[in-house]
């Protein structure tokens, strides 16, 4: 009898638990998601910026042609799904990418969305239209696109100079929303109009950004939230304390550093926190056009002196990744395998042996214990730049290089780099999509505006094109690994580490996915809901 009762009780409890799970799993409509924002973005136009401070609040206003699936953490070609497009097809020997567009979609001001809007957007991005963006940082993404043509209101084609499979990946980025033809770039900076799940309400500089639910959103039943409110809190301590006190439902994504994460977990133990790579590589930019770093031996010695694990343990309590240009696996799709990475000078596990070799190279260049090389290590006056620069200076001491920190205000950083008015620089490079084309062409191709060091190797440039056209994924991967290895061996822009950062939200916030190989693509927020 007792066992029957126990069985009945167990069954009842199981039923209750199951129903609770089922209830908790059922998305609820309503509520305003309150989030703090780390700083005040310069404007509201995603196409005119290069910081995810813009993507987080304004990505929910827009749609792309295609997008990375928002509930899958790792972006890849397999996770690209249609958005304003209903389908796509590669034709003409993979030189034309044609999209069939979704019918009945309306802009937030009620005007219909058509293929003309897609053409307008990409013509502007390629610099081919009358209207111009004030700034167009991703123009190079579309260098292989000859033109964009329309066929009726619901079909649009990208006609390429040569096959470029990764164009689809670039189009799926949070940086690639479709803009309306009928709204000027100036108006898009102050009052953006999109087709996305949330409508723009207001942006008060240094105060707040407010979005409200788009009741006419083409995806029925979405978004779940009534709106999103971002309060701009530049002071990180204040922001974290406010999150802990429950003033916010969500912390700004990927903005909780590893040491702060401990505080959050101790003060708000119920908060849900995840740590993911943000695909931002901390690297050294070397002015190889002037002495002393025009000497390849000194560049190599510098690369050999790096103790990457020390950087990671000091700055991230061990939670970071060592890799080449591309984010290493398992989160990164294109990073070199460990064995290959460790075969590159400076990446081997024996730091002392590496440094002995570096000292020999320095001695060959005329430096030694009695004659140190004095260099300035320039960097931006922001902690994420400054802190690793200090560690770098310390490590360079081991190979007779005396570094002096040269802290540069943000306003002067890029003009200084462009003037080549630096010897060594500590830099951060964020990758919008985990794809070699974006990284290689942007940072290493001859003449690219973001190739700050002016590294130019025609042989490697040819290899960029070969990998870019390769449709076989495995073949392309091998080509990419070889290129990445050569870039590291050339000390083009020595990569120190790939950072990991934390994102936290309150336990009642559901449907949030933090992307694990990009921090620019996962903020549509149409699937987010609150269980309260």
């Amino acid at each position, binding site marked *: 009898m007792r066992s029957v009762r126990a069985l009945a009780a167990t069954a009842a409890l199981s039923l209750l638990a199951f129903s609770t799970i089922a209830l908790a799993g059922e998305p609820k409509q309503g509520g305003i998601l309150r989030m703090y924002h780390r700083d*005040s973005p*310069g*404007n509201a136009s995603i196409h*005119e*910026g*290069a*910081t995810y401070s813009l993507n987080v609040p304004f990505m929910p206003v827009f749609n792309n042609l295609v997008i990375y699936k928002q509930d899958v953490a790792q972006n890849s070609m397999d996770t690209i799904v249609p958005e304003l497009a209903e389908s796509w097809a590669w034709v003409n020997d993979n030189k034309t990418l044609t999209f069939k567009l979704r019918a009945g979609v309306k802009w937030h001001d009620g005007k219909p969305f058509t293929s003309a809007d897609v053409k307008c957007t990409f013509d502007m991005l390629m610099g081919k239209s009358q209207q*111009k963006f*004030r*700034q*167009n*940082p991703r123009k190079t993404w579309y260098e292989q696109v000859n033109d964009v043509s329309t066929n009726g209101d619901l079909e649009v084609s990208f006609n390429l100079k040569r096959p470029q499979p990764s164009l689809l990946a670039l189009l799926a980025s949070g940086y690639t929303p479709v803009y309306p033809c009928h709204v000027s770039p*100036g108006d898009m*900076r*102050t009052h953006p109009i999109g087709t996305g799940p949330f409508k723009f309400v207001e*942006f*008060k*500089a*240094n*105060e*707040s950004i407010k979005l409200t639910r788009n009741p006419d959103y083409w995806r029925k039943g979405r978004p779940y939230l009534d709106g999103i409110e971002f*309060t*701009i*809190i*530049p*002071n990180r*301590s*204040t922001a974290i*304390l*406010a999150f*802990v*006190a*429950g*003033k916010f439902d969500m912390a700004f994504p990927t903005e909780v550093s590893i040491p702060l994460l401990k505080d959050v977990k101790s*003060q708000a133990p119920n908060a849900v926190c995840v740590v993911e790579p943000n695909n931002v590589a901390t690297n050294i930019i070397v002015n190889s056009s002037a002495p002393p770093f025009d000497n390849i031996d000194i560049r190599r010695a510098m690369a050999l002196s790096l103790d990457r694990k020390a950087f990671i343990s000091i700055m991230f309590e061990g939670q970071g990744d060592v890799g080449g240009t591309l984010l290493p696996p398992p989160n990164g799709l294109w990073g070199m395998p460990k064995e290959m990475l460790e075969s590159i000078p400076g990446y081997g596990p024996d730091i002392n042996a590496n440094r002995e070799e570096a000292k020999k190279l320095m001695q060959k260049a005329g430096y030694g214990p009695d004659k140190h090389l004095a260099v300035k290590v320039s960097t931006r006056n922001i902690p994420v730049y400054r802190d690793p620069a200090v560690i770098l200076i310390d490590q360079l001491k081991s190979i007779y290089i005396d570094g002096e920190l040269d802290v540069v*205000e*943000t*306003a*002067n*950083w*890029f*003009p200084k780099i*462009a003037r080549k008015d630096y010897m060594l620089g500590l830099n951060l490079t964020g990758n919008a999509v985990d794809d070699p084309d974006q990284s290689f062409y942007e940072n290493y191709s001859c003449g690219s*505006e*973001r190739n700050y060091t002016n590294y130019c190797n025609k042989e490697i440039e040819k290899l960029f094109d070969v990998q870019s056209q390769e449709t076989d994924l495995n073949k392309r991967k091998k080509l990419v690994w070889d290129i990445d290895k050569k870039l590291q061996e050339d000390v083009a822009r020595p990569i120190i580490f790939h950072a990991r950062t934390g994102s936290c939200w309150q336990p009642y916030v559901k449907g949030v996915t933090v992307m694990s190989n990009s921090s620019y693509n996962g903020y549509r927020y149409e699937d987010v809901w609150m269980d309260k």
Partner: protein
Amino acid sequence: MFAYLVRRLLLMLVTLFGISIVIFFLLRIVPGNIVDILFAAAGYVDPADKASLEKELGIDQPLVVQYWHWISGFLRGDFGYSYVSEKPALQEILPRIPITARLAGLALLFSASIGIPLGVISAVKQGTRLDYALRIVSLSGLSLPSFWLGLLILTASVAMFNQMPIFNPNPQTWLEAFATYAVPAAAVGFRSAALTMRITRSSMLEVLRQDYIRTARAKGASDAAVNYQHALKNAILPVITVIGIEAAFLIGGLIVTETVFNIPGVARFLVEAIRWRDYPIVQNLVMLIAIVVVSANFIVDMLYAVFDPRIRYTD
């Protein structure tokens, strides 16, 4: 008196003209401009795009021309557009002024209402334990930077009450509105209160040793009457002067307090505008502040002249 007034008025106009020149050229001496910052944010520098943007904003023109455009617009009440938000500068500045004014007013009130009575008590009870305790409090107030005190208050509020006293843009009751400003005002006013307390104490000690105080006591006046009616009345003048100076210095303390408590006031806005090299905002805002300060000085000068005839005749 009329000649004095005209002289002061002319001096005020010359001062404001000088300030406008200093603001304008100092801003241009600082390396980098809005275009550099926008391109830094975008992560690249394209010389053609840069030149086009500089032309669009008018910062490619000679400095004299730029100055004339600004100052003539300012005199007409046309403050131009913010480079960052692209909204009218006046529209950006005006809503923030009352926020900072309330905060500053409350901080001064806190400073006076706490500093003066405690200063009097400290002086009257000189050499007692209470005096020593109050002197420690005042020294702490002078030693604690307001941003650190602000962070301590926030941390303690969260740890002890799980409450976060940061700015509430839409308070429902006057009590909520008061609470929004009271905590940051206390944080920024604490230093000011400490200074007021020390000045009040030393000024009171000096006055309390005067003959007329002894006379008042001999005549049988109560302690309260002696301390507050006879002594404080004469000791208060240097205190008022210090509070006046503190009011001008307060803007420095407010910058950090507004940042820590996330208050969207003028002080933080000014710093952000300087960071972005948003010339229309910085120039007009500093000029407005200068007008307020210079006008207040002018009024005080006039009052001096009203109350002290020597100034009228000798200045």
